[in-house]
């Protein structure tokens, strides 16, 4: 099957149409509902606690480069920075990518300016550590220990270094909140962090905080798509089961499975 079959085209078409419907509805001004996530309250609590203790906050945007997950992590970082900037608390953002370094520096500067304290912004709080996964992890745990951070935020794409970061933060007594779409790292964050935003909630959280209509519409459109896919799966399951009894359904089954 070097090229798609008709059924693949139909499924992709329906799923894409639902996603685009969500986005276009949102752009036209339709109010889309996303429930308030408990993780957002935890973010505010963590920033508050760090401010009370007079110690800085660390926000890691993960291993990603110029990709959507990293940008959505930066949107949450901006929110955290605006909260922290109100009380002139520091937010340290270590990054692994040089392009993200530039964008993170700009985002942090804007957050302090919006909060009315541009003078509190320190360019050296955005640090490019390394392009390598474990060198980055070593650098971050060094920052945690030297700066004695009170709150850690881990948002974005993570890999094996997730537990190294989270466990080190645990050992220094920092309150930790993680959010990642990297499902395989979620168990490690759950074990070591105080609050974890899991998978899809990460996209929903960044859409909720940024109130960007495109992100909001995309999240809602994806929900519609998943319902459609579940319905399609159920239909296929029913046809496959009935086809064992009625051979006439084999043609339909072959169509649904793309001829395989």
């Amino acid at each position: 099957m070097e090229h798609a079959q008709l059924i693949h085209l139909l499924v992709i078409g329906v799923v894409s149409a639902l996603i685009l419907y969500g986005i276009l509805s949102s752009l036209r001004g339709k109010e889309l509902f996303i429930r308030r996530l408990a993780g957002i309250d935890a973010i505010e609590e963590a920033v508050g606690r760090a401010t009370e203790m007079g110690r800085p906050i660390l926000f890691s945007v993960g291993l990603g480069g110029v990709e959507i997950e990293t940008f959505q992590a930066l949107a949450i970082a901006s929110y955290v920075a605006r909260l922290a900037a109100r009380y002139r608390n520091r937010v340290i953002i270590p990054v692994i990518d040089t392009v993200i370094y530039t964008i993170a520096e700009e985002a942090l500067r804007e957050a302090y300016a919006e909060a009315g304290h541009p003078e509190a912004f320190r360019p050296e709080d955005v640090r490019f550590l390394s392009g390598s996964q474990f060198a980055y992890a070593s650098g971050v745990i060094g920052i945690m220990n030297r700066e004695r951070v009170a709150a850690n935020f881990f948002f974005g794409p993570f890999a094996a270094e997730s537990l190294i970061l989270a466990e080190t933060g645990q050992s220094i007594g920092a309150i930790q909140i993680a959010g990642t779409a990297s499902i395989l790292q979620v168990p490690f964050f759950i074990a070591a962090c105080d609050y974890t935003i899991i998978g899809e909630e990460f996209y929903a959280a960044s859409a909720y905080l940024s109130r960007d209509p495109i992100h909001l519409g995309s999240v809602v459109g994806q929900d519609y798509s998943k319902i459609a896919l579940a319905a399609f799966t159920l239909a296929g399951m029913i046809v496959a089961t009935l086809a064992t009894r009625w051979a006439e359904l084999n043609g339909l089954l072959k169509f649904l499975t793309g001829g395989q």
Partner: protein
Amino acid sequence: MFQPVESTILNIALMALCVLVSVIFLGILHNVPPNLRMRVIMVVTFIAGLYYPLEFFIPDGTVLTPLRNRYLTPFLNPIGDAVAVMAAFTVGIGITNLCIVHARNISQRREGWGNSVVFFISMILMFVVTLANHYAPNLFCKATADGMMTPVQAAFSIMFDGVYTALNATVFSLLAFFITSAAYRAFRIRTAEAALLMAGALIVMLGQVPVGMWLTHWIPDESIFRFFRFEVLSEWLLANINMPAQRGILFGVWVGALAMALRIWLSLERGGYFGRQF
């Protein structure tokens, strides 16, 4: 489809022409209003992103199939080569950015500037030794006996196997310590769900190691109680409890990836950092 031309002068002329066209194009883009620039980017992104979906999604046996076979499929290799060349340039961009950031650290004597000096020394050393190992392994002397390394090969082996590989593996191995301490601290049975989780974890952990298998090896392989052997029970948990959950998660992941691809292709990310002028 496109065959390489064996002519140095023509190749140099073509490269110079490409550089000239790129400079002119970038110059024009730089000077036009931002709205127009954005529209050009949107159109180019849309057209570039249209090729692969069209080539793959036009099914066999339709009126469009001959057009696909004639005008789309033959371009797979040249376009793939072009993408590979662009990807190769991003490696260069990455290295350039790294050098700029570290050079700034050194020139401004920022905190930790000594590490940036170490970066430059390490990068240059690794670069030189790797090139020498690839192109001139016998630079100083030939290998004297079978299995003996030349000084260049030894230097590469020390830096790659002895330093880079060992450091990478060492930091990764920290996970063994952290997993143990995290598991000890986090796995406390306070609810019924936690007890269920603990039982499942215990079975899977013991099913992964020979000691666990040995604990239940006395259950005969042919008996109906074979199910209770740790490795069988562990496999059942992974294949029947874990697998449907993973499949559900996969649905969400790939729908999310499709949504992301659609937003980039249709340039719908203009609200975020993509649309900003830096």
